[in-house]
């Protein structure tokens, strides 16, 4: 089976997502952010700008906890935390 998109590949990662997000973008900053580069740099496709809702959709349950979004955030206003103990990813092949 050949996996191409991140959603397919993420099926191979053991994960127990929390019910609340550990990633909280600043709504106002996202709205005025020109590049919204979190959408590109994230290896798990967590961020998706939704025009109709005028906000950044955060699929935190897909997060690989790498921190690329935190580094890339132009406004440096993303609240980025590790998931609570017992939640998040568990790599077996890292």
């Amino acid at each position, binding site marked *: 089976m050949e996996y191409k998109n991140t959603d397919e590949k993420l099926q191979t*990662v053991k994960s127990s997502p929390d019910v609340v997000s550990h990633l909280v973008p600043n709504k106002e900053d996202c709205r005025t952010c020109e590049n919204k580069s979190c959408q590109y*740099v994230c290896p798990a496709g967590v961020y998706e700008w939704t025009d109709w809702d005028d906000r950044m959709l955060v699929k935190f349950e897909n997060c690989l906890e790498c921190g690329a979004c935190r580094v890339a955030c132009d406004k440096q206003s993303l609240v980025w935390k590790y998931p609570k103990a017992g939640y*998040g990813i*568990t790599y*077996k092949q890292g």
Partner: protein
Amino acid sequence: MTANKTDVIIVGAGVAGVAAGITLARAGKQVVIVERGSYAGAKNMFGGAIYDYPTKDIYPEFKEKAPIERVNKTHRYMITDDETAVTVSYNNEKSQTSYTVIRAKWDKWCVERAVELGAYYSPMTVVRELIVNDGKVVGIKTDEEEFFADIVILADGVNSTLAKQIGLRENLKDSEIAVGVKEVISLPKEIIEERFNLTDGSGCVTEIVGAPMKGITGLGFIYTNKNSVSIGLGVNIDELKKHKLTPNDLLNQLKEHPSIAPLIKGGELLEYSAHLIPEGGFNSIPKLYGDGVMVVGDAAMLVDNVHWEGTNIAMMSGMLAAQTAIEALEKNDFSAKMLSLYEKKFKETSFYKDMKTYKDVVKIVHDNSYSFLSFYPQKINEFFEMFTESGYIPKKSLYKRFIKNFVKKRNIKGLIKDVINFAKLFIGVLK
């Protein structure tokens, strides 16, 4: 030891943290290693390889007992264009320097050794902040509790929110950090050994420069494990932003390259993973200590990005921080002045000296990414295409055409600039 006070707390059970923990346990000190994953290695990912030194100084029995995948006896350097590749391969069957491991197994094995020697290990513990009293680090705050120690060693990885909290690190710069993505692809042992031309148990490390990361500061890699192949790449975050590229798309393109696809053909994806890589090198190393605190490994940006070494530097820094902690405990002095000895010791290591040697390399490559990472890889491939071609056109005309194209694409001014930059690289390294 009172209920919640110990000699040393280490935040993070990666290669740096556990090297520190085992060194302290061996010296009979009370040490607590906290790890946010459900086991050591659960949150970790690397290329990757560990190295003979300083591993054998920390785990003397590792070659016989540790979960090693393969001993890397072949090193390949691939310069890729869109459809072609020039590969240099070095093989030394006697080499015992570099080993592929899988972090979930390796880190777990290492922490078990530390526990055997008396370290206290606490997985599934997320440290939210450091407890600071009068500018001195005196403990950690987890989601549930507070713990105190004479010294806290920060081995909390590249994102080190704790080093940032106490001002040892600034916000990470997107030009100094790469995002690494990797796929571990399952293949039978015999097929791996056939495809990579390996003897039983030996491994191959491949580094890839050029397509699909043409003109982008980034490198691809392939490592062989026992029954799987790890393929991935690391790309600077500022480059992904600039070119609006996702790391996963680049990885898919790398896997489809005609010279790479046959190596992983028919394999099944075991796991996809991602992790940041500190790429800032020497110029990004922060101050390594403060009152009651030392920083080690990726948390201190200790990666030699020219030789792709990180785990060895991490272990070394962990070991030296622990040795300093032992002296500090004996003198009952946990001041920044006392702990500065760690930085002094680290500056005497070959690892620090190597990082210094290469301090400008990545910046020069990054500033000249078009010529170094696109134009020349392409021209090297075109040269071999011309050299191996057979037809009715005289070779002399082919040579002339090649040179004409070369100068047309990169004018004399550009070529002179490249020569100067190449010279700068060499002078920078050798001076």
